[in-house]
C-alpha cells in the first residue's frame, strides 16, 4: 500500500507557492546538446529508464538559440506551456452537485433499447490509450488490460451475454462528448468524473470509482517553483486554475504524456486524481505524492445524451443494473483487488443515488 508522503505542506499551500515566484526553471537550459541518459536497470526490475533532457521551461523567456528551438526539447506532441488561467477551460467550476443517475427498470432488453448494438454483435467502448492500471495495452501481451477494461467486459457480459463481445476504441477527454453523440462509441469508460456541466452533454451511469485530487511530484523538484502538468480541458486543470491561476502549466493530450514530461524535466508535477496518479507513480518510483487530497471525484460510465441518441436513457438504466450486479456479487472487489489494491487503500464502491424525478 502506498504511503502518503510525510510532508506538512498542504496541497493548497503548495499550489499557492507556485504562483509566488516567477523565477526561471530549476533545470538549466542546455538547448544545444540534448543528451539521453539511460539509468542502469540494475537488480530492481521496476526501475524505469528515462531520457533526461534539461530544457528551458520558462515560457516567457525565448529559447537560447532560434536554430535549436525545434530540438531544444520536444514537448509531448500537442502540448503547450502557459499559465493555469489561460490553459484552463475557463468554465466556472460548477459547485452545483451533479444529478443522480437513472434508476434501472425491470424488463428492459438491449434488443429493444439499442438494436444496432445487438445487430453489430459487440459493444464499442471508448477507453484511454495508456492509463496504467486502468486501461492500457499490456506491452508484453499486446492486449488491452486494466480495471476499466475488465469493467467494460463485465458490462458486456450482462448486456450481450459474453465478456468478449466488446471492442475498444481510444478516446481523449476533449472529444468524448462528440464521439458519443456521433455514435462512434456506445459508452466511454475513461476516468470521466461526473460534473453538472458534463451532464448537459452526456449521460452518466452510477459511479464505479471514487478518487481525489493529488499532486505527484518529480524527484528533486523545487516545491516553491513547480511546472504542473495536466491534460487540457480536464477537471484537474480547472481545480488548479481556481487555486493557483498564475501557476505555470504544461497542458498535454494524455496523462501518460505528463509522465513523459516529468521524466524529461519539462514539468515538475502532475495534478490529477490518485487513481490515475497511482498508475503513473507505479511506473516511476522516484516520484512522490505531496500534500493532502483536495477535491473528490467520482468516475462513471459516460453514455450519449438522450437528445443525441434514441434510447440513451434506457441504455443508462441497463448499464446501471449491470453495475449494481457487479457491486452485489463481489466482482467489483475482485477487480479492485486485482488492479488497485496494491496502491490505494482498501475501500468500498462509491456511494450513488438515483434521480427522484426522471
Amino acid at each position, binding site marked *: 500500500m502506498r504511503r502518503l508522503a510525510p510532508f506538512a505542506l498542504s496541497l493548497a499551500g503548495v499550489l499557492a507557492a507556485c504562483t509566488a515566484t516567477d523565477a526561471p526553471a530549476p533545470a538549466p537550459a542546455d538547448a544545444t546538446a540534448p543528451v539521453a541518459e539511460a539509468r542502469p536497470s540494475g537488480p530492481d526490475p521496476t526501475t524505469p529508464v528515462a531520457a533526461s533532457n534539461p530544457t528551458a521551461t520558462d515560457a516567457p523567456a525565448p529559447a537560447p538559440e532560434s*536554430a*535549436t528551438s525545434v530540438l531544444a526539447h520536444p514537448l509531448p506532441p*500537442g502540448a503547450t506551456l502557459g499559465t493555469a488561467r489561460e490553459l484552463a477551460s475557463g468554465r466556472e467550476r460548477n459547485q452545483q452537485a451533479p444529478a443522480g443517475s437513472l434508476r434501472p427498470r425491470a424488463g428492459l432488453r438491449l434488443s429493444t433499447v439499442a438494436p444496432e448494438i445487438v445487430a453489430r454483435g459487440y459493444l464499442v467502448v471508448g477507453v484511454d490509450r495508456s492509463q496504467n492500471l486502468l486501461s492500457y495495452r499490456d506491452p508484453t501481451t499486446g492486449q488491452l488490460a486494466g480495471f476499466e477494461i475488465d469493467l467494460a467486459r463485465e458490462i458486456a457480459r450482462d448486456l450481450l451475454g459474453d465478456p468478449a463481445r466488446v471492442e475498444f476504441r481510444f478516446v481523449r477527454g476533449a472529444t468524448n462528448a462528440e464521439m458519443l453523440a456521433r455514435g462512434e462509441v456506445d459508452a466511454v469508460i475513461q476516468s470521466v468524473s461526473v460534473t453538472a456541466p458534463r451532464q448537459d452533454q452526456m449521460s452518466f451511469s452510477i459511479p464505479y470509482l471514487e478518487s481525489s485530487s493529488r499532486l505527484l511530484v518529480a524527484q528533486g523538484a523545487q516545491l516553491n517553483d513547480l511546472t504542473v502538468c495536466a491534460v487540457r480541458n480536464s477537471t484537474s486543470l480547472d481545480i488548479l486554475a481556481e487555486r493557483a491561476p498564475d501557476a505555470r502549466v504544461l497542458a498535454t*493530450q494524455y496523462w501518460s504524456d505528463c509522465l513523459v514530461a516529468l521524466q524529461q524535466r519539462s514539468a515538475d508535477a502532475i495534478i490529477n486524481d490518485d487513481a490515475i496518479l497511482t498508475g503513473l507513480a507505479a511506473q516511476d518510483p522516484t516520484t512522490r505524492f505531496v500534500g493532502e487530497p483536495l477535491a473528490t471525484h467520482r468516475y462513471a460510465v459516460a453514455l450519449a445524451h438522450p437528445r443525441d441518441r434514441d434510447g440513451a436513457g434506457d441504455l443508462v438504466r441497463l448499464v446501471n443494473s449491470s453495475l449494481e450486479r457487479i457491486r452485489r456479487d463481489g466482482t467489483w472487489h475482485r477487480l479492485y483487488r486485482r488492479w488497485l489494491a496494491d496502491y490505494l487503500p482498501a475501500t468500498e464502491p462509491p456511494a450513488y443515488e438515483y434521480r427522484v424525478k426522471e
Partner: protein
Amino acid sequence: MTGNREAASLYSATRGTPGPADEVGDADAWVDRLFADSTAQSATPGWRERLQAVAARPWRGVRGLASYATTTPGTMLIICVISTLAILAAGLSTAASSRDRRESLDQLLTATEPTNSAAHDLYTSLSLADVIAAGDVVKPGAPAEQRYEEAIDQASIAALDVASRLPADYAELLSTVYRAMPEYAAIVATARANLRHGYPVGVAYMAQASALMQESVLPAAGELFNATRERVSSEQAELTRPQWVPLSGLLAAIGALALGQWWLWRLTKRRLNRGFLAATALMLLATAWVGAADFAAWRAGSVDYHVAATPWETLTTSRIVAQRAHTDETLALVERRSLAPGETSATRAAPGTGAGTTAADESAVPRGEDFAATTEAVARALDDFDRAAAVLNVDSSASQVARVQLENWSQAHAELAAALSGGNFGYADEVSAISEVSTAATYTALDDTLAELISVTRDTMRSHLTESLRASRAVSLVVALLSFLAVVAVWLGIRPRLQEYL
C-alpha cells in the same frame, strides 16, 4: 646673295686653316668644310629643338608603319596578324570552355547527383524507421529491433553522405535532421525500455518520437531532397546544352580567314593560298569536332537522360507517398481510428495546440488520405518506368513484380480499413502486422521492389551522364592543337607571298 657673301667670308676664313683635304690639294675640298661647319654650328641645339625631336619619334614611327602598311607586304602581314588573333581567340576560348564544362559535368557526376540520391535514401530510411518503431507498439513481445536498427543505420550513412558534399545553403536543413536523429533514437530506446518493463508510458514516448520525426525531421529531409534534385536537373540542363557562343567564335575565325583569302586574291591576283586553305580546313575540322562532340553530349546528357530521369522522379515521389500512406495505416491502428478520409489523428488534431503542431502540416502524415491516389501515383510511376525501359532497352520484369505487389498491398489495406471502421481491432491487428499478407509484409515487398527500380533508373541516368562526359573527352585538347596548327599554316602560307616582296 647672302649665301655668296657667306661663302666668300668662309672662303677667306678657310683660306687660312688647313683642312684634311688640303693636303691632297683637292680644289673642291672647301665644300666639305662648308658643310662640316654648318653641322658643327647646330651641334648644340636648344631645349625646344630637343623636345621636338623626342616627341616626334613615335609619330614618325607610326607614320612609318602607316606608310609601310599601305605597302603590299605590310597589308599581307596585317591580314596574317588579324587571322592569327581570330584563330587563337576562338580556338583557345573554345578549348577553355570545353574543359570547364567537362569539369563541371564531372562534378555533377561525382558530387551533386550522389548527394541527391543520398538525400532520397535519408528520407526513406528515416520514414521507414519511424513506421517500424511505431508499429512495434501494437505487436506483443520483442520489437523488431533488427529492422529498426538497420533503417536508422542506413539513415546515418545517408546523412553523412549528404553532409560530405552538401553546399552551404542547405547546411541548416541538414543540421535539423542530423541533430534530431540521436534524440529520436534516444526517445525510441526509452520507449522500448519502458515497454519491455511492461510500462505503458512507453507508448507515450513512442508517440513523442513519432511526432518529432513526422513534424520536424521528415519535412526538413524532404525539402533537402527537393532542393538537391532541382540543383541536379538545372546543372544537367546547363552543362549539356550545345556551346553556341564558342561555336560562333570559331565560325567567325573561319570567316576572317575567308576574308583574308579574298584580300590576298585582290592583292596578289592569285585565287587561293595554300596556307590559308590549310588553315581554313583545320578550323573547319575543329568546328565540326566541337559541333559533333556537343551534339553527342547533348544527345546523351539531355535527351537520353530525360528519358531515364522522368521515371526516376516519379518513382522517388511515389515511393515517398506510399511510405506516408503506410505510416498512416500503422498509426491508425496504434491509435485505433478509422482510415476514412478526413479522420483526424489524435496526436495532431488537438485544438489550440499552437506550439504543438508546427507549420509543416502539409508534410505531416496524411490523415486518412485517399489511398486510391497513392496507388494511382505508384501505378503511373511504374508506367513511366516501362516506357523508359522500352526506349532504353532496360529489363522491365521488376516492374511487373511491383504491380502484383501493389495489388496485394491494396487488398490488405482494404481489409485493414474495413476492420478499423468496424471497430474490429483484434482482426485489424492481425491484418496489419501478423498475417502473411498483412499490410506490413506486402508494403515492405513493394517498397523493396520500388527501391530496386529506383536504383536501376538512377544507374541509367548516371550512365548517360558519363557518356556525355566521354563524348567531350578530347575536344579541348584537339581544338587547341588545331588552332595552333592553323596559325602555323597561315604564316607558312603567307611566306612565299612575302618573299616576293623582300
